[in-house]
Each structure stands twice: as C-alpha cells, then as structure tokens.
C-alpha cells in the first residue's frame, strides 16, 4: 500500500511527519520510507541507517556522431524542446533541455544520434531496524526531477512486496514533480499549517489531488497558530482531518537537531497513533 505525504506549501512538516510516522509504524511492523523530494531530500537527516544498496541513476540523451551525420536537419525539426540545434555544419545537443523522448535518435535516417546514459542522480537504500529507507538525490544543475522520481518509485515497486506500507515523502508545490510522486499512490496525506499561506497552498494541493482522483486526508501541523480556515474548509468539503500536531517550540528544536520527535513529545505520539490507525483501517478495507 502506497501513501504519499504532500503539502503544496514547503516547510509545513512533510519530512517531520514522514520520518516520525515511519519510525512509529516500524515499532510494530516493517515499513518502507522513500524520499521523493529529490531536489532537496531531507528524510535521511532524520532516519539514519546502514547502507544496503547504492546505484547511479541515468537519463538517456542523444550524442552526435559527426562522421555519420548527413546534416539533413530532421533531428532539429523533430525536437519539441529545442534540445537539438543545427548550427552550420554542427549539431549541438543541450542535455538539460532534453526530455529523453528518442524522437531525434530514432527518426535520424543514418543513426547519427545514438542515445547514451547521462547520470542525473543517485539512489541509496538504508536499513534501520524495520525501516527500509530509500532516497534519491538529483545532481545539482540538473533541472528535471521527474525522471529521477519515476525511477525511484520503480525501484521501490520492484524491491518490496505489495502489502507492506510504503510512505513517500513528496516534493512541495503542485506541478510536475508532485504529480509524478502522487499519481500512482493509493492514498495521499496533505500536511498543512493553519495560516493563510498554509491554507491557500493546501487548497491548491487538494484540487491537484482531486484532479488525480486520489483519496486524501489532512494533517494539521503547528496547530494553535493562525486561524480556523483550514478546519472550516475541511469540514465543508468533507475532508477527514487525521491529526492536529500542536505548535510547540520543543518540536521545532528537536527538528532542528535532526531528531525523531515522538519519543520526546508524548502529544506527537498520540497524533501519530491516530494517523497509524487510519492507515491500518484503510488497509483492512482494501483487502
């Protein structure tokens, strides 16, 4: 069972919830946590463990083979992303613009643009007790997170059985990286804070998740600050609120040190218990 933890706005507590929930559930059963925020992966700062696997991740890009090229210009014409440009008697490839569609390579009549792998990031798997933790990080300067997110999900899919609970710490925002992280999961938990920014971005995230036809629920973080808009909205829209994590300077301090919070803050544990029960019931219903 795959569950994404997403938010719209950054810094609302995705990583805090992902890591604490993973640690809490791992007290009773095996769990997988995967950090899909490949631009700024943070879960690994909180869940440390023994490295069990490491692999480079590649995207495929074309390279120009000058001696084969007849300068017919088809490659440039078929690239919708302007990643292949003909300049005089030269073909230039801009790897950061390339989406890896293979059109230039396969439509070249003389096979002068073979596709070769280019490293875009690294995937690592760690083990800590009953938590299997997988993170991928994008090489700085690579602009496209989506292919790495997709390959990380494939890795998780391939290496862990269907019934094990898998948590995906998702990237912020509402555009392509989030869509990629969320589109194949069974359930989405949106975490927000009860402030105008939190509320505004949570609505965007909720609309995005609805568009993807996913079941979802909300967790409120830093409960006690701001106003009631998030709660009123959820009640109006019949969105379940799974938990309210209190606003607490102690939590912020523990977080800043990279520590798991619920073992120090009993209220946090109570809220995690509610979320865990909800997830376990979902799983029961699915069977």
């Amino acid at each position: 069972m795959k569950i994404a933890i997403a938010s719209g706005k950054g810094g609302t507590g995705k990583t805090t919830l992902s890591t604490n929930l993973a640690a809490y559930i791992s007290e009773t059963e095996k769990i997988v946590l995967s950090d899909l925020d490949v631009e700024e992966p943070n879960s690994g700062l909180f869940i440390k463990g023994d490295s069990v696997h490491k692999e480079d991740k590649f995207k495929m890009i074309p390279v120009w083979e000058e001696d084969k090229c007849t300068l017919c210009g088809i490659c440039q014409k078929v690239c919708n992303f302007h990643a292949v440009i003909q300049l005089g008697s030269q073909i230039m490839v801009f790897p950061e613009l390339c989406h890896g569609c293979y059109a230039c390579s396969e439509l070249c009549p003389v096979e002068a643009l073979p596709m070769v792998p280019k490293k875009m990031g690294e995937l690592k798997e760690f083990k800590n007790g009953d938590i299997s933790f997988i993170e991928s990080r994008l090489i700085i300067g690579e602009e496209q997170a989506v292919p790495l997110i997709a390959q990380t999900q494939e890795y998780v899919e391939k290496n862990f059985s269907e019934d094990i609970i898998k948590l995906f710490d998702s990237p912020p925002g509402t555009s392509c990286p989030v869509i990629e992280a969320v589109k194949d999961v069974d359930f989405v938990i949106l975490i927000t804070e009860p402030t105008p920014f939190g509320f505004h971005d949570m609505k965007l995230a909720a609309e995005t998740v609805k568009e993807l036809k996913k079941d979802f629920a909300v967790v409120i973080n830093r409960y006690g600050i701001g106003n009631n808009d998030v709660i009123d909205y959820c009640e109006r829209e019949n969105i379940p609120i799974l938990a309210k994590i209190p606003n607490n300077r102690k939590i912020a301090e523990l977080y800043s040190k990279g520590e798991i919070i619920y073992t120090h803050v009993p209220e946090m544990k109570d809220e995690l218990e509610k979320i865990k029960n909800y997830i376990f019931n979902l799983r029961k219903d699915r069977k």
Partner: protein
Amino acid sequence: MKEIVVISGKGGTGKTSFTASLAYLGGSDVVVADCDVDAADMHLLLKPDFAKAEEFFSGELAVINQDKCTKCGRCKEVCRFNAISIINNQYIVDSLSCEGCGYCARVCPVNAITNEDLNVGNWYISNTKVDNTLVHAKLGIGADNSGKLVAKVKNEAKKIAVENNKDYIIVDGSPGIGCPVVSSLSGANFVVLVTEPSVSGLHDLKRVYELVKKFNVKAGCIVNKADINSDKANEVREFLKEEKIVHIADFPYDVSFTEAMTEGKTIVEFDNGDLKKLVVDSWNKIKEITK
C-alpha cells in the same frame, strides 16, 4: 535596475514573508515578481488588484482522433512516457503523463494525432496596496512547464521595470533546485538566501548555494529562527564565512510573523519595534551591496 532574487532551497523558511516586507519598504521604487508560481502566496500579503490577466500557453498535448485511428499501435510503441494506453479498445492519451514531445504524431501513419497547445495557467500584472507593480501567476492544476511560466513572470517584470525606470526587481523564488529555481536565478544581480538553523535548513542551503555558484552571482543570507538551535546557527554562520556569503541578518523565532500573516500583513506593518528594524536594516544593507 537591479534584480534581487530571494530563494531558500528548503520551503517554509520565510522567503515570502521577507520578500513581501521588502516590497512594502520599497514601495513604488520596486517591481515585484512572484516566481513561486506553483504555490504563489505573495498576493495574500500585498493585496494586488489583478488589473491585467492573461492566459499562458506552453507545451503541447497529443490528441488522438478516434475516427481516423487505425489502431496500429505505433504511437504507443514510440512513447517513452507510457502516456498512451488502450482503454475499451481505443488508444487514449493520459494528459498527465504526456510530455508533449510530439513523437507519436510524427510516426502516426494516418495523421490521426495532433498536438494541442496547452494552457498551463494565467499570469497577472497588478498594483499592490503599497503601490508597487506585482507580476504574478497561477499555474493550472497539475500543469507542467512551471519553469517557462517563471521565465514569463520575470521577463514581464523586467520589461515594466525598464520602461518605468524602476530601481529594483524583487523576485520571490520557489523551493528546490530544479527548473523553476534555475529560471528565477537567470539574470539576477544579487541572491538572498533565507535559511533556518536546522539540519535540513543547512543541508538545503548548501545544495541551493551550489546552484547559485553556477550563476556566478553575489549572495547574502538571512538566518530566520536563529535562536532555535545555537549550534546549528553557528554552523550556518561558518558556512557563510567560508563561502563569502554576506550575512545580512539573524531573525528570531517569533510568533509575530505568523500573526502578521494571519492578518494579511507584512511584518513591517504589523510590528513597530525590533522586528521592523531588522527588516529595514536588511533592506538598507541589500541596497548598499547592490549599489
């Protein structure tokens, strides 16, 4: 005209609260660009009037004409994004997976596939409550191409700033290090990094600064919630020193930031004491550096 870009790597460190305060202080001298088009929040504090709205088209989506389709399967074969599937014996494009590369349309033997321009959102030119021009946008739900919309917002802001002889463009960037951030960094004269002294704040600061270095642009840093972890705050300061990043200011962990936001105000409207002074001093410092 100077372009000041505010980014953070990590989300939620206070970028927008800080940027909106600079906008407030800058008034009619500045043009503001909200380049966090995924989750644009600046308008909640600056109360723009949405005076001018335009649609933004970017990228393409493959559309299969079922009357012409002979179900040869060639399109599905060439698609590297698994965007074409067979549903009820029809070849159907999944709009969320389609990258708009157009490969399928090129190989379809009966020309049954066309590429449609995608409306990925709207962008706006507004006057704000403090008399600056705000260029902002709203990305459509689930839309792609946020990097291009960022470029559009920035270029429009630049145009307005040049035409009206404005001194500054202040850009609120998005979290991360991917295409929208790259897009907002291009052309910057000065980068303000907003961070917090936490393991993730520092981790993300280091990654985003690696990216900033590729642009060869001078940077300064605001350490928000500086008193939450003094060891980490020292580590942040050390990193700034090593990298010759200007340490602009330390901000305390203070509920006033949230309270101001809840009232739809910037911190400089809400607070008349130390916090306001910190922001004013920071703005003066930034102006001095970019002179």
